[in-house]
């Protein structure tokens, strides 16, 4: 019988850009159990709906997380729009879709970089982030911000993208596609990278479903499911199939996310092709009265928003269940039986976003 020891991991750790704490129960080098404790980034922003009116709260919703900030703002608006029965103009829906997919590309490139950093491939890390800068430039050109955009409002968008700008984006995306192809080679075919990722952190299809995993983490376990299939915004007019893999390991998660970058580029091309002319916002009158659940597919997976208003300026309750929260049980499962040295990579493969999780 080997002795058991408990190793605290985090909150401040070189590979963690964000604070999370895990107590790892080890048997020699093998992890037998992991117990998470969170709360280092907990702000309590759900309660801010009592202090900010429902229009202003869009800005708070955007700041749930700085990586998927566009989608948080958008989904909050969609929930309120649903309660108030507002039908968006078609152009606004397309704009939202294009920005969503741009967010997905930048988020996945960011993740690829962090993954490369976690297995010690510094130049690949820098390459991924260099490509990401092109997307951030596109954001800056179209919204004025690199991280927080504030282009969503209840009833539509604050800014339009001119058609000439959209065509310019397509040219830039062609370059991005080429560049991503070149790093794909390193991520998927490099021998050293393969040894770090293949067979590490297996999560079977049944486990993924039973533990409620979402997003690329789930799709890498062979479940073909994507909230975008519900056809919100412009997705119903676009043609796509969820990217999946059946390998169920860290390699599969990497492969799925790379596949989704190409998919997102393709979706933007389709959307630019079909985007109609017209208004980008409708006027909003009155206050939300009622409740709504909205589910969207974020870069990290399915997110659920609940908004409840009582016909007043201030909402009664806002709640968001973010993808990382749903992926935590799956992470704990993959950690069981792994080696201590693999823990950083495994934590990264769920693409953790702690500020989303703890709000």
């Amino acid at each position, binding site marked *: 019988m080997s002795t058991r020891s408990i190793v605290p991991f985090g*909150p*401040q*750790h*070189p*590979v963690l*850009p*964000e*604070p999370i704490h895990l107590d790892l129960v080890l048997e020699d080098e093998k992890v037998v159990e992991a117990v998470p404790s969170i*709360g*280092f*980034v*907990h*702000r*309590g*922003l759900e*309660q*801010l709906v009592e*202090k900010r009116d429902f229009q202003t709260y869009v*800005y*708070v919703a955007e*700041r*749930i*997380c*700085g*990586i998927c*900030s566009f989608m948080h703002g958008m989904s909050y608006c969609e929930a309120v729009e649903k309660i108030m029965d507002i039908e968006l103009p078609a152009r606004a829906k397309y704009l939202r879709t294009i920005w969503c997919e741009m967010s997905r590309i930048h988020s996945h490139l*960011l993740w690829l970089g962090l993954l490369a950093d976690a297995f010690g491939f510094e130049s690949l890390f*820098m390459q991924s*982030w*260099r490509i990401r*800068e092109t997307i951030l430039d596109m954001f800056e050109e179209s919204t004025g*911000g*690199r*991280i*927080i955009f504030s282009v969503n409002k209840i009833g539509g968008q604050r800014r339009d993208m001119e058609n000439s700008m959209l065509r310019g984006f397509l040219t830039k995306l062609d370059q991005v596609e080429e560049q991503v192809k070149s790093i794909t080679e390193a991520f998927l075919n490099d021998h050293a990278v393969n040894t770090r990722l293949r067979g590490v952190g297996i999560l079977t299809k049944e486990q993924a479903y039973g533990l409620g995993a979402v997003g690329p983490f789930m799709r890498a376990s062979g479940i073909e499911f994507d909230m975008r299939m519900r056809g919100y915004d412009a997705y119903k007019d676009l043609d796509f199939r969820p990217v999946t893999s059946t390998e169920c390991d860290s390699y599969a998660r990497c492969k799925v996310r790379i596949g989704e970058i190409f998919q997102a580029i393709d979706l933007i091309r389709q959307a630019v092709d079909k985007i109609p002319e017209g208004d980008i916002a409708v006027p909003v009158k009155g206050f939300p009265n009622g409740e709504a659940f909205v589910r969207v597919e974020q870069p990290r997976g399915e997110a659920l928003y609940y908004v409840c208003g009582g016909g007043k300026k201030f909402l009664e309750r806002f709640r968001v269940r973010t993808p990382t929260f749903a992926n935590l049980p799956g992470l704990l499962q993959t950690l069981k039986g792994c080696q201590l040295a693999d823990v950083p990579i495994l934590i990264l493969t769920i693409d953790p*976003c*702690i*500020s*989303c999780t703890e709000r």
Partner: protein
Amino acid sequence: MKVSKSPWMLHYDGSSCNGCDIEVLACTMPRFDVERFGVINTGNPKHADILMITGGINAQNRPVVEQIYSQMPSPKVVVAVGICACNGGVFKDCYNILGGVDTVLPVDIYVPGCAARPEAIIDGVVKAVALLDEKRKTMREDKKEEGQ
């Protein structure tokens, strides 16, 4: 030897939304490249001269931040990156936010913005580097005075 030739920086995410953290990391990337000032990002507080904190302070991370600060060797400079680290920002009214970083640590440099732009962060780092030299000089003088 001047410490400002190669100061190392440590980044800790207080309770930020991730936006500023990503920008701090982006600053170490080839495009913005703070490393041209000799700055290297490290994960070990005992190696660090500059502490970059993003996000506000809450009850849980207060001891963590204090501990990191106490582990850093002197002279050290604290840079608060982003408006949340400066005074709590948009989350000021949240029940779990005590306020900006200066509620627990002496902050030397405040970098504004939501999210702080890389240019502003670089500006903050350059100021921090200059301040390190100054602090070192005062430390030496204090030591001399003690010796006399």
